[in-house]
Each structure stands twice: as C-alpha cells, then as structure tokens.
C-alpha cells in the first residue's frame, strides 16, 4: 500500500493507493511524512572512504565513533512536484538522494533484532545541501534552507518490500541519468540506525530517518531551471523543479 497526503480546503487529507498509477502526480502532494526528520551523515561507503584520510588527521584525529546525526527542520520539507528554491550567492547546490525510513510506532530503546518492527515503510528523500566545507561544524546553514528536503511521493508499506537494504537509487537531472547508488551502500544498516537513534531519542509515529546520502560530486549539482528526479527501485520517483530563491 502507498500512503500519501494532499490538502483540500486547508485540511490535510491522508490517502492510500494500491499502485502508483492510481495517484495523480500533477502536483498538490504534501511531504509524505509530517514528523521529525533526522539524517544520518557520513553513512555512505564511498563518501566515508573519500574522507578517511581527513578523519585521521587534525583536527579530527580519529574517525567518528558513532553515527553522526543532523536534523532537517520542517521548513525544508516539501512534497512531490514542489519547487526546490536555491540561493544564487551561496555556491553550488547538490541533490542528496536517499532512502527515507518512516517510523510506524513509538520507538524507545529498541534492539537491532526488533528494529524493523518499528518501521511503517519507506519513501524517497532528496536531502538537498549546499557544499559543506567542514564535516565537523553544524550543518544548519547548508542543509536547513526552506524547501531543501523533498519527501515523497508516498510511503510504501514495509511489508511490500522484500529487501530495503538492496535497492537501486538513481538520480536524473532533466531526464539524464546523472548518478547511481544503492541502499546497500549504508555503513550502518537500517536496523543499526534505528537502534542507535532510539537509544536516546524516542522516535514517534511519522518521524523519518534519512538513511544516508552519497558523496556530492558535480554529477549531483542542481541549478535553476533543472528538474531533478530521484528514483528508488520498487518505491517510485520523486520529481521536483529547481527555481531561484
């Protein structure tokens, strides 16, 4: 089942569909979730490898001991079809394709063995970011700009997916395939991430975890006038135009 949200007369309406073609994707969809959104930074193997040398030099000295988390505030959340608004004077802006893990029941101190019981389903996230000059400073300025987190178009029930940890993730800019990765590139698995976060943050129904974004190279750069599409195998496609802020 696919769960999506739209708005009618200022009311949020929750809807369900059995198949993607039953959902009108022309626009008007809200972000597929409406809880807290927590990102797991440095959770992609290639990204991590690219920084390994830096981790072992000053000022870091050693690699991170635990998953590094960040928050995408609600002003960043937009739905399918809504415009990503990018500033003109802040340097390059990058798409951040990722699997979104949606929490289905209150999760406080859950074990890795039971972690998947707390997942309602999965969605697609575009965790948009400015270039980050430093991985050891808070990411607010780069990541929390209005519209910098498209989520959707829907949440697919976990029971409809055999293996969320092995899905192809493709990013298209203006219909050209620019980037390919897979949810098998996570350093900390879905179970590990849920167990770790819930050891000190009680996750509520509708909260979402951004599983991990890849290294942002030129191939993921987005510019005004582009249309960016993130496709995750079996889940669907999240499409958003890019406009000037």
């Amino acid at each position, binding site marked *: 089942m696919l769960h999506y949200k739209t708005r009618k007369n200022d009311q949020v309406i929750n809807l369900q569909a059995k198949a993607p073609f039953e959902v009108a994707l022309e626009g008007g969809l809200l972000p597929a979730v409406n809880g807290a959104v927590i990102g797991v930074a440095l959770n992609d193997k290639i990204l991590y490898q690219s920084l390994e040398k830096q981790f072992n030099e000053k000022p870091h000295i050693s690699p991170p001991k635990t998953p590094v988390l960040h928050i995408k505030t609600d002003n*960043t959340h937009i739905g399918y079809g809504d415009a990503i608004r990018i500033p003109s004077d802040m340097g390059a802006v990058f798409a951040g394709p990722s699997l979104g893990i949606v929490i289905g029941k209150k999760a406080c101190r859950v074990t890795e063995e039971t972690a998947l019981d707390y997942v309602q389903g999965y969605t697609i996230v575009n965790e948009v970011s400015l270039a980050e000059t430093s991985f*050891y400073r808070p990411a*607010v300025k780069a990541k929390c700009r209005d519209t910098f987190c498209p989520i959707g178009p829907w949440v697919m029930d976990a029971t409809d997916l055999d293996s969320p940890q092995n899905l192809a993730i493709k990013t298209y800019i203006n219909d050209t395939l620019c980037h390919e990765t897979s949810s098998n590139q996570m350093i900390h698995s879905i179970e590990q991430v849920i167990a770790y976060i819930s050891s*000190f*943050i009680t996750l509520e129904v509708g909260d979402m975890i951004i599983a991990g974004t890849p290294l942002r190279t030129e191939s993921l750069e987005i510019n005004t006038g582009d249309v960016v599409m993130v496709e995750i195998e079996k889940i669907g496609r999240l499409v958003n135009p890019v406009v000037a802020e």
Partner: protein
Amino acid sequence: MKRARILFNEETLNVTINNEGKVVTEKGTVLEEGSFTWLPPCEGKAFVLAINYADHAAELSFKAPDEPLVFLKSSNTLIGHNQKTYQPDNIDFMHYECELVVVIGKEAKNVALEDAMDYVGGYTVGNDYAIRDYLENYYRPNLRVKSRDTCTPIGPYIIDAAEIPDPHNLAIRTYINGELKQEGSTKDLIFNVPYLVSYLSNIMTLTPGDMIFTGTPEGLAHVYPGDEVIVEVEGVGRLKNTIISETDYLNSL
C-alpha cells in the same frame, strides 16, 4: 503577560500566570501547583548557540567563533518546569547550561538587523544539558550529547518581549541544591539577540514558537542523580528540574 502550556486532566491547556505566580486557565480558573504538569511553553524549531560567551569559549579552550555556531535539537529533548532529566549510566561529565531563550513571535524571513527585535515574541529560560562524555568535538555537536530525551528543560513560561526592555543586561544564574554555581550576564553575549534573529532568518523562514537558546556563560559543574537544579534569568524566570538515574527513568516509562 506570561504564557505557559500545561497538561491538566490529560488535556493540553494554554494558560497565563497571574501576579501571584499562579496558573490561570482561559476560563479564569486558578490552578494550584501540583495539580497539573508544566509543558514546554512553545513548539517549534529549537536552535542552540554553541560558545556564544567569550568566557565559556575560554573555559572549553575554544577560540570565539567569527560566525554564530548554531545547531538544532529535536523536540523529544524538551521538557517543562519541575520535570526530571535522566543521567545515562556510566558517564562522568553531565553539565547544565543556563540560557536565555528567545521565542519568535511572527514569521521572519530575510529580516534586517535593525528590524529583528520586532520578530521577538518573548523570552523564556532554558537548561541545555550536555553529556560531554559523548562529545566528539570534531563531528558536530552530536545529538547524543545535546538532543537526548528529557535533556532540555525549558520554561516555566514565556514572558512578552515588551516586558524585557533590554535582553542584553540580564543576570544568569544556576543553583545546584540551593548553592550558586554559575553566574554571568547576557551583556557578554558574543552574538546578540537581533543578530541571531537576523542571521537565522537569512538562512530559513522562522515561524512563531521557534526558540533560540542563546548560549551559556562560564561556570560549568557536574550534576548527579538526586540533584535539584535551578536555572534563572533575571526578570525572565526560574526553571527547576531534578536529575534522576537512568534506572529510575526506565522504571518510570
């Protein structure tokens, strides 16, 4: 005007505080302390300033930043007045941090410095506990240090901005079990209130209820289960909270 949120008979109520310090419901009923639970007085994004007092920067052996060092908390960490914060087992460095909290009063986007104070709705008091054992300095102020369940008491109430003519000259004090442990003044803020409002509004849209924890002066000390911690900002309020053990916390769930 002082405004708060409470849980009363399992219902969330918006209330005001009268001149005697008593909670008054919208229907005019005066409630006795103990008959309700204090909630965080606002709901919104929670920004926190790291190292926004020069003396605190020196205490932590940091150079004062040349741009605000802002991080975020998620809402799970916020609790109200008179509530309990749990200390994880097997840690050595749990510190309180008494802070003036600015509450946004109206939507703010790209606000100029000279207009910024118009967007401040009021002020409250925050206690930004940190578990420094978990701090990996060079990997951002990690949420495990700062955004833990129960780790950010805030309140008891929001006092209207109009009642605090100068937010940059307020004494800040922390007492542990009645003993004064931390004392400073908001006059020593590196980045002041209008600067922070303008700075953040140029990154993103701020909305009513958003909170800016402005940072803490020097005077860190350890806290332990059983300690009663009071953080106070002159003219704004006194926020009380108790430390409990992780075991007691888990048993209370």
